């Protein structure tokens, strides 16, 4: 298994490198940011001086090299809008996003897995149908649609929960549900189908024939096998939530990275956008790596390769 992990880790690094190249390339594609930074009356001389100052007149690979070195030192440029280091801006807002993400993810796991398991066990009952109904509806709605409807129902009309900003726990509820809904639906459906497949197996029949209690058959035997695909899916889902958080944060005016990204896009604040993308992709790649490692650990067939 060690070899497996090392190979995967190496692949992850390569991907990260490629991603940084792509990002770098894209940002240069959108035109010279120099024109944004200077007032319109700037002379050609000024342009050239700023170019040289920013190192934008050097050949592309060199620029990339500089970029990479700087990035590793933690210098990812300065926000055009705030005139502060981009990395700092992003890191300031990261905790808020992560907290929301963790909440959404926890809701998803703690709700979806038991519901999925019992839905599979009690197939075609009311519980099963309503669970699947909720899941399908949830997966049919984009984040902003869920958010708007929740806000209308619980904030505007019922006046129960706040609809924007971050504060006490009450502020977390609506955004948390909005962010987590899609994940919950997905995890629930996967758990259910994985369990259904496993419950059909011969070894489950045998487990019952051994005289085990039904709850033990369900959780110790069936679930332990069904959880493998669910686990890998869940880690993927968590990382995808990062994308979904952009919309959610925008709707709920949540002071996180997602909202920063959207605003920076609108204001063409490239260094920040670049940084956000880099960090997101980095988290994503790390998440995938973790998933792979987790999968290898849990699946005895990979763990104990002769």
């Amino acid at each position, binding site marked *: 298994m060690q070899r497996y992990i090392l190979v995967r880790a190496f692949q992850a690094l390569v991907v990260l490198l490629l991603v940084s190249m792509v990002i770098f390339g894209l940002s240069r594609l959108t035109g010279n940011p120099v024109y944004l930074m200077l007032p319109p009356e700037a002379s050609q001389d000024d342009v050239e001086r700023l170019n040289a100052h920013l190192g934008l007149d050097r050949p592309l690979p060199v620029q990339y090299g500089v970029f990479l070195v700087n990035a590793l030192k933690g210098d990812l440029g300065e926000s055009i809008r705030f005139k502060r280091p981009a990395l700092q801006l992003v890191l300031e807002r990261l905790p808020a996003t992560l907290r929301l993400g963790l909440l959404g993810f926890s809701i998803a796991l703690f709700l979806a897995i038991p519901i999925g398991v019992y839905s599979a066990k009690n197939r075609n009952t009311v519980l099963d149908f309503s669970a699947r109904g909720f899941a399908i509806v949830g997966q049919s709605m984009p984040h902003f649609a869920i958010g708007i409807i929740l806000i209308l129902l619980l904030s505007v009309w019922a006046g129960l929960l706040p609809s924007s900003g971050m504060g006490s726990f009450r502020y977390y509820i609506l955004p948390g549900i909005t962010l987590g809904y899609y994940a919950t639906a997905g995890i629930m459906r996967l758990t259910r189908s994985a369990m259904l497949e496993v419950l059909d197996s011969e*070894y489950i*029949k*045998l487990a*019952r*024939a*051994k*005289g*085990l209690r039904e709850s033990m058959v369900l959780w110790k035997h069936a679930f*332990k096998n069904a959880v493998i695909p669910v686990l890998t899916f869940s880690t993927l889902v968590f990382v995808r939530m990062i994308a979904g958080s952009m919309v959610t944060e925008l709707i709920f005016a949540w002071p996180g990275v997602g909202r920063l990204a959207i605003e920076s896009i609108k204001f063409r604040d490239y260094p920040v956008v670049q940084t956000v993308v880099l960090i997101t992709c980095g988290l994503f790649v790390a998440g995938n790596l973790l998933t792979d490692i987790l999968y290898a650990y849990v699946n*005895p067939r990979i763990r104990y390769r002769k």
Partner: protein
Amino acid sequence: MITNKNNIQNESLNRKLLDVKNLKSFFFTRHGVVKALDGVSFSVGVGETLGIVGESGSGKSVTALSILRLVPMPGKIVGGEIFFDGEDLLQKTEANMRDIRGGQISIILQDPLTSLNPAFTVGDQIGETIRIHQHLRGKSVMRKVVESLRLVNVPEAAIRANEYPHQMSGGMRQRITGAIALSCQPKLLIADEPTTSLDVTIQAQYLELLNQIREKTGISIIFITHDFGIVAQMCDKAAVMYAGKIVEISGVRDIFDNPKHPYTMALLKCLPSVGRVEKLVSIEGDVPELSRLPPGCSFAPRCAHRMEICSERYPDEYEVNPEHKVSCWLKR
């Protein structure tokens, strides 16, 4: 050494360990009621081996599941009695049944690969049974696991116990399922086509193993198979099943020397004999759909000896001798 506490060879073999009376198990499906078992009766004595023979769909496996009361939905046991050690299993609570499953009656299934949980070591799976039925913990469990593995002739038992199913061969895996089944010294072992998915040579080894265990422990076995050869090798009694009913049951010699039911005779004719060149015989027609059985004898449409009464009433059972009973209108 495992000594079976039921090693009562001096006790009369007349004592019936398992006595099934008129067992009926139906499946209630969208397409109709499938009468998987429609009034099945047989018995197994202490230390005796009964073979249940039939084609696919005859109800053999449902019999096994019914005894353990593990008939899956949409099936239900709708009638009859199953006396085990003098008590009707159909009257017992679920909790009591759980004690019996694995503890007094065990089962081996057909496919050893899918019978074992890929997520646990072999030792874990054997140990689990020991833990629940014998209430042991820690090192004593491991000791019993190794004992069980030795009982089924698994070499290097202690090392094997920590391996996973996917690390073993088919024959080895089937021994493991045997070890699991025998770990708590049950009185009755139900073997549902245990050798069907094994290679022929491994098959022979496995049957030999079962024979040894039988002699050592005096365990009763119900051997479900479609192979008369195995019946000849392993069984004291044989019951032939067709479309949910037992059509003929007798001591094993009688089945071969003096078969009475046309289906039994046809099955025996289907066995190709080694050393002679002959045409392969098969039985005309198909097994009927269990939800739409014809009136009268279910085998009548395919029977070479059918008479008018065969399509009208199901044959009454008659005795050739106290051991040998047949359900057929044809008395010869």
